[in-house]
């Protein structure tokens, strides 16, 4: 098989899976539908591994052009794919984690009436996600970008009988569209400045375009990233997106889609590196988001909401990495995060499954002895996200923090604070769910059972990845050689080397040690509060202290947006409709008509006023004219 066929098949297979399942509808037996869906992603994964191995062996990046897509004047864009180390790594994560989540869904969605529909959407999602990372130009990336947004919309509102879920789906789509407008304008500006929107044409010429144009372009692209990767101010859709089935939260709203913004900024490193202002913006937004979302997560009581805010926070951390120019660190953390966050979500799904739909951690507790596989794998996920060595999150997070320290101790301080909060709320979650007394009803406890193997096997696989995933980027000071950084280096070669001198080994050891130590302190604090003292968050409706109440209510950001954007838009629309349209323009038109009508009263006697009569005369007139014209010849 030639490489162009392999590359084309990677996205086509999931598309085929979607098409078959979607068109055959409910007729297709569930077993067949899920086999098709899982199988197509598995084969794509295997093919991605083939490409990965080739690239590992030093092969140059692959490019395949399928057909010309849009052409208007000098604007030409092809359906063309690019597989370089960056997209190759993304392919592995998308198809690998994607496959595990497909398998998980077989068990999780087992009794759902929309089983086939669910798998068709999942496959469609994988297709678009693959387009996003494989496109060799901005517009094809945009196709994937909006396509995954569509799938996200469809899957958040998967249980469409519930209008609250549908509202969450609409919110996700519309908020993403706000970002997309920035992105698409950025793409047009790229075309205007570079005369092309192919990566291969744009990046080498990055230095030839004026600094202000580059800054404008990169900021507009980043607006797109804010929407897709849920950064301040466009993040509020992601916690609401938890309305979707849990495998969706794992795949789309944690592991893959929401990292698209990180991918996109990293892909455009050649442009971002030329604009200190844009880099500064990426850094600041990432930093604020990381801390802000972490504080909200401290006070949430819905197991999925905690994980959702944690995702927002972790994405912020990835943008911090990009903002300080440590692109490969950002991608490294993206990969490890995909492992442990998918694991955590799937683990949460297993808990929810065991408790028949319960998501409130105040009604859990003491579950470790009932569902031990879920407990152990969840624990691994928590250790990984908290950055305990040697779990995956330790290496990737440490790398980001080290680069942050190179940039400035303040940046480092804020990022460390966000990390420490993360370990606190994650252990809070772990302790409240699995430790202490059972708080679920006896009825539920009686029926509690460990999930089937289609659920536990993906959990264990992801647990293994969350343990060993970090080894791809062991830093030199710990005896590694940062393999992932070297693998990605061709993609980030255009980005200039960091001007700041790298840290001395002594500093690096000291920082690492301090962070691990502080993390252990946070865990101890969480332990003493939630295990030793058996603290349980107060039930709904009981008064809270002011600060607690503010973060419990997510700083009222949704309410603020509603007051300053949603309601005004509605009022403006009403104003247009009732005042300007009906009482303004249309009334003026009617008045003008009436005026002419009155004025022409004098002439009216000449005519009988029947419109039908006029038309009749007109048609006759036309026919006579045509007839007349032929007699002339």
């Amino acid at each position, binding site marked *: 098989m030639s490489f162009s066929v392999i590359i084309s098949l990677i996205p086509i297979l999931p598309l085929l899976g979607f098409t078959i399942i979607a068109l055959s509808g409910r007729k297709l037996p569930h077993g067949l539908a899920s086999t098709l869906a899982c199988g197509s992603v598995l084969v794509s994964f295997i093919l991605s591994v083939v490409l990965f191995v080739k690239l590992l062996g030093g092969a140059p990046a692959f490019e395949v052009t399928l057909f010309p897509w*849009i052409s208007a004047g000098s604007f030409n864009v092809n359906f063309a794919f690019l597989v370089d180390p960056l997209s190759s790594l993304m392919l592995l994560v998308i198809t690998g984690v994607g496959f595990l989540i497909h398998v998980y869904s077989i068990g999780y969605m087992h009794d759902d009436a929309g089983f086939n529909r669910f798998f068709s959407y999942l496959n469609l999602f994988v297709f678009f996600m693959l387009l996003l990372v494989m496109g060799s130009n901005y517009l094809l990336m945009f196709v994937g970008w909006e396509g995954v947004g569509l799938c996200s919309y469809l899957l958040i509102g998967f249980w*469409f009988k519930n*209008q609250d879920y549908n509202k969450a789906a609409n919110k996700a789509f519309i908020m993403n569209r706000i970002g997309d*407008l920035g992105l698409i*304008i950025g793409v047009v500006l790229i075309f205007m400045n570079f005369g092309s929107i192919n990566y291969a044409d744009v990046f080498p010429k990055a230095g030839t375009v004026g600094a202000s144009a580059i800054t404008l372009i990169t900021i507009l692209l980043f607006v797109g990233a804010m929407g897709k990767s849920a950064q301040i101010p466009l993040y509020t859709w992601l916690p609401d997106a938890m309305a979707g089935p849990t495998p969706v939260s794992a795949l789309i709203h944690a592991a893959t889609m929401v990292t698209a913004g990180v991918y996109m900024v990293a892909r455009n490193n050649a442009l971002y590196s030329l604009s200190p202002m844009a880099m500064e913006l990426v850094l600041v937004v990432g930093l604020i988001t990381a801390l802000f979302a972490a504080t909200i997560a401290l006070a949430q009581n819905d197991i999925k909401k905690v994980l959702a805010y944690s995702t927002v926070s972790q994405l912020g951390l990835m943008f911090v990495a990009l903002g300080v120019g440590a692109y490969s660190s950002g991608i490294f953390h993206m990969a490890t995060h995909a492992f442990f966050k998918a694991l955590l979500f799937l683990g949460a799904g297993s808990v929810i499954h065991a408790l028949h739909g319960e998501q409130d951690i105040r009604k859990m507790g003491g579950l470790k002895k009932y569902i031990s596989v879920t407990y152990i794998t969840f624990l691994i996920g928590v250790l990984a996200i908290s950055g305990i060595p040697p779990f995956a999150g330790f290496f990737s997070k440490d790398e980001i923090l080290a680069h942050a320290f190179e940039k400035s101790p303040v940046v480092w301080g804020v990022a460390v604070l966000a990390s420490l909060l993360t370990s606190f709320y994650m252990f809070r979650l772990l302790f409240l769910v699995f430790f202490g007394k059972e708080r679920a009803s006896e009825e539920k406890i009686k029926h509690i059972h460990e999930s089937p193997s289609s659920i536990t096997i993906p959990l264990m696989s992801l647990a293994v990845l969350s343990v060993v995933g970090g080894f791809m980027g062991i830093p030199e000071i710990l005896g590694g050689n940062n393999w992932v950084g070297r693998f990605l280096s061709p993609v980030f070669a255009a980005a200039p080397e960091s001007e700041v001198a790298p840290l001395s080994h002594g500093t690096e050891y000291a920082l690492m040690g301090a962070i691990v130590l502080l993390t252990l302190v946070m865990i101890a604090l969480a332990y003493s509060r939630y295990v030793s003292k058996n603290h349980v968050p107060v039930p709904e409706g009981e008064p809270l202290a002011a600060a607690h109440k503010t973060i419990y209510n997510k700083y009222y950001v949704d309410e603020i947006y509603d007051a300053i954007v949603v309601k005004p*838009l509605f009022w403006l629309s009403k104003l247009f409709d009732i005042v300007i349209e009906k009482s303004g323009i249309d009334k003026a*038109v*009617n008045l003008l008509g009436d005026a002419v009508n009155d004025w022409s009263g004098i002439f009216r006697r000449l005519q009988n006023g029947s419109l039908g009569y006029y038309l009749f005369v007109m048609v006759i007139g036309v026919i006579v004219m045509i007839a007349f014209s032929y007699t002339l010849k």
Partner: protein
Amino acid sequence: MLTALLLFFPLLVSVVVLAMKPAQARSIAFAGAVLELVLSVYVALQFDKSQLDQFGLNKEWISTLGISFSIGMDGISLLLVLLTTVLIPLIVLSAFKDTERPASFYSLIMLMQSALIGVFTAKDGFLFYLFWEIALIPVYFICLVWGGENKGKITLKFFIYTLTGSLFMLVALIYLYFKTPGHHTFAIQSLYDAGRALEASQQTYVFFALFFAFAIKMPIFPLHTWQPDTYTVAPVQGTMLLSGIMLKMGIYGVIRWLIPVVPQAVQHWGYLAIILSVVGIIYASCIAIVQKDFKRLIAYSSIAHVGLISGGLFTLSIVGLQGAMVQMLSHGIVVFGLFYIIEIVEARTKTRELAQLGGIRNVAPILASVFLVIMLGSVALPLTSGFIGEFLLISSLVQYKLWIGAVAGLTIILGAVYMLRTFQKSMLGETNGVTALLTDLSGQEKLVLFPVVVLVILIGVYPTPLLSISEVAASNLLSLFSDLSASVK
């Protein structure tokens, strides 16, 4: 000759249908419309994409007045003819069997087709005007006779409004006619030459007279107030004709009978047209958000979409012009599909109030899925037909002026707001007393809607054949402006 065949064949069908018994009228009309479609596809395959006018016919007609029967097609005409020949059979098929007085109804639709093709192919100013007015007659009667509540008053307003616009056009055309040298003529090239030779102030008068007529037809803000009422009250086939094809007469008019006639004035006043168009996008989108009637909502969304088309068109760039072409086709198909879905829902539930609908997806999943795909076309999701045009048009406006492009681009957000809301209110949620017993698509309805779904995706994935049809004609039109700037230097 092929153009003449395309033009007169529907007229023949129209006459034949009139003589038919009610029971046969629909099948004969449908057969005729399909034959016409086959013919137009044949013509498209014969079309040489590297050339301008083809399949022409030029006969002297009223030679004393310099009027000739001159028709022909370049790529721009061909695409609009194709839009007409694709939509008419679907429109015929979409009419339910129990239409009153079917013979006259289908006869009028076929007459309409003939007139529309005449508009899109006329190469003589007088002939163009003639077809332009003839096209109004069938749709007027369709709305008047088969329309809904309050039809008399609303249809009259529509008629007078557009007729007023046409009068301005007629005056402009006659003015140009008298500016032609020697024995006056309505031949298109002579009118072009006469128009371009005018002084700036004279060009301005001609520009506004023509623009007024075309702007009403599209319609462009603030000349649009006839449209929502007419679309809402018209029988659905009338609405489909008006929105799917007839509004493209206005855009086509700008391309063929405004831009090349008074290019300097277009360059000078295009800014105004763009501003009005972009204001219309935002204004109509906002109004769509608060509509309660499904049909009226789509009527306003149509104003927004047309605003984007005309805005992009007046940037006088190849990207804008090609975007306008492909968006005209996409909009025609999408809006046809949307109005048909509304009709299907209304026929089953007797209501178009969004507040009364809901949960239809539970009982009619195929209907809901078809609506979903067409809606995605409407909100311009990539890989649907709507994206190609909308991207090119927004792109042209951004290149024209960044802030104008950014404001026009708000359509991708506002469009999502009102369309997702509509989908949610009608299709999602639990069923209620009104929708609980709704049945899914019938065979005939699938036959109408599946081609729409296929076209929405096909054009979105592979628009190249369409874009290449109009490429030469579009760049030829714009070469006028490079010539202009060259002559100034």
